[in-house]
């Protein structure tokens, strides 16, 4: 799993072997393939881009072309041990509702997202007065898919408001995992393991 993106690698490490997983926004199924190959996980995926779906199906994975904002409703309650949403929450029409769907479908949920309160973003806005374009978020404001700019503190607040339990959390600066202290300043992105 060493070749996985750091947030995906952390998820892959902490998924229980043999469990049932739904990867929402699974792309071409990289994480699913790793989970299936190394942890005998029953992995299913949802992806909006038909070309990514085609590649995932081409590698023998069970992936449904769908829009997470709408099509998660297709899945029954508690159908999966884990629902995974990596780097997609900030693109949802309603991240709060999507979080609810993840924890309806899955007993637990992994959610990873870029932290818009990272010091580099704050500095960019403060000193340049411009919406930041960074190595992790390389797209200008007018074409970005990130329509809900969320911070670590915002996310924690949403979890508290919704009564969602935090099982674990991980924070990253670049490829490197960092401690939780000052994460809202220091983390470029975060991974949370949540439960109802």
């Amino acid at each position, binding site marked *: 799993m060493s070749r996985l993106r750091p947030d995906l690698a952390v998820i892959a490490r902490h998924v229980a072997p043999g469990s049932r997983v739904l990867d929402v926004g699974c792309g071409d199924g990289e994480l699913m393939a790793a989970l299936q190959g190394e942890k005998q996980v029953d992995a299913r995926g949802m992806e909006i881009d038909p070309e990514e*779906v085609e590649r995932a*199906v*081409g590698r*023998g994975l069970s*992936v449904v072309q769908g829009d997470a904002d709408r099509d998660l409703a297709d899945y029954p309650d508690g*159908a999966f041990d884990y629902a995974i949403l990596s780097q997609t929450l900030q693109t949802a029409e309603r991240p709060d509702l999507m979080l609810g769907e993840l924890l309806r479908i899955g007993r637990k949920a992994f959610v990873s997202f870029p932290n818009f309160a990272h010091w580099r973003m704050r500095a960019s806005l403060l000193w340049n007065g411009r919406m930041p374009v960074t190595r992790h978020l390389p797209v200008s404001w007018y074409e970005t898919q990130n329509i809900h700019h969320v911070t670590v503190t915002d996310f924690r607040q949403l979890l508290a408001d919704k009564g969602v339990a935090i099982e674990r959390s991980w924070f990253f600066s670049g490829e490197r995992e960092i401690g939780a202290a000052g994460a809202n300043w220091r983390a470029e992105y975060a991974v949370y393991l949540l439960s109802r």
Partner: protein
Amino acid sequence: MWLPPHPRRPMATVLASTSSSLVLDQPLPLDSGQSLADVTVAYETYGELDADKANAILVFHALTGDQHVASPHPITGKPGWWDRMIGPGKPIDTGRFHVICANVIGGCMGSTGPASAAADGKPAAMRFPVITIRDMVRAQVALLDALGIDRLHAVVGGSMGGMQALSFAANFPARAARVLAIAATARHSAQNIAFHEVGRQAIMADPNWRGGDYYGAGKGPEKGLAVARMAAHITYLSEAGLTEKFGRRLQDRDAKSFGFDADFQVESYLRHQGIAFTDRFDANSYLYITRAMDYFDLAEEHGGRLADAFAGATARFCVVSFDTDWLYPTAESRAVVHALNAAAAPVSFVELKAPHGHDSFLLEVPALDRVVRGFLG
């Protein structure tokens, strides 16, 4: 004298195939409550069957298809209808898989249908019982039984073939490891039924139909059947596809004739499609098979809830739709995927971009080839 199309051995096949037919030793029970005795199932096979009989793929044909899936058609001499998909090194690789394709019952290419003799030795015609998609599937499962194949590597079908694949999965869940349904639906809509009714009425309005008793009468309802085919053919193509292919271009003339000849290329094309179809298809078979499709409602067969149809599913599923297919649009495939998700069955679904409408499943769509190859593993 009109004779039902009679299958002949292909002369030279590119792909080695074996034409066979089997007479079922048990009467076939039908959804209507009737049963059919001495049912013949005509089928073609391609590729070697492994010693453990685990590499077989059953391909279901569509409304006007037949068992000649990858070998030349015995009447028209044209390549098999899925020649581009099936063969050595092709997405359904006959170097690895043993491919079986059987003519559906009700058909006219060697399997028992309305042109077959009834007990009195005369063609059954409209005495042939109304059959369903599930009846077609039952006949093919009986074929698998006779061949000693317990569990298929996959069942595969497009359009009505996809309907059979879904019916197979619902009714014989243990007998296939993979189910691939392309451009299909779990039920015929009012619009689907309406188009079929136009076709049937065209056949029945032809005076040569004679209540179905045209066998041996000199002439069959070719005009009616041709009109049925013309109407149906339009539903297989996209509006953009028709526009691109024909536009308003005139056929072999510089100006409109101010008459009712085939002025437009599209008219000429449809007329040709209609007439050519009558050379290879029996009008009564068209009535019976379209009826079976109209009766198809997989949820209705399972207490009204489609997910229950797949409750016992053990297979992996792959559902494919095309963005320009307005006959069985993507929403129909999504309903199947929804039900499979509700039944916790492993399912893949993709809507592919293709310009050709419903017929895309038969035509050059490289993305379909990749999905089929990948799904079959």
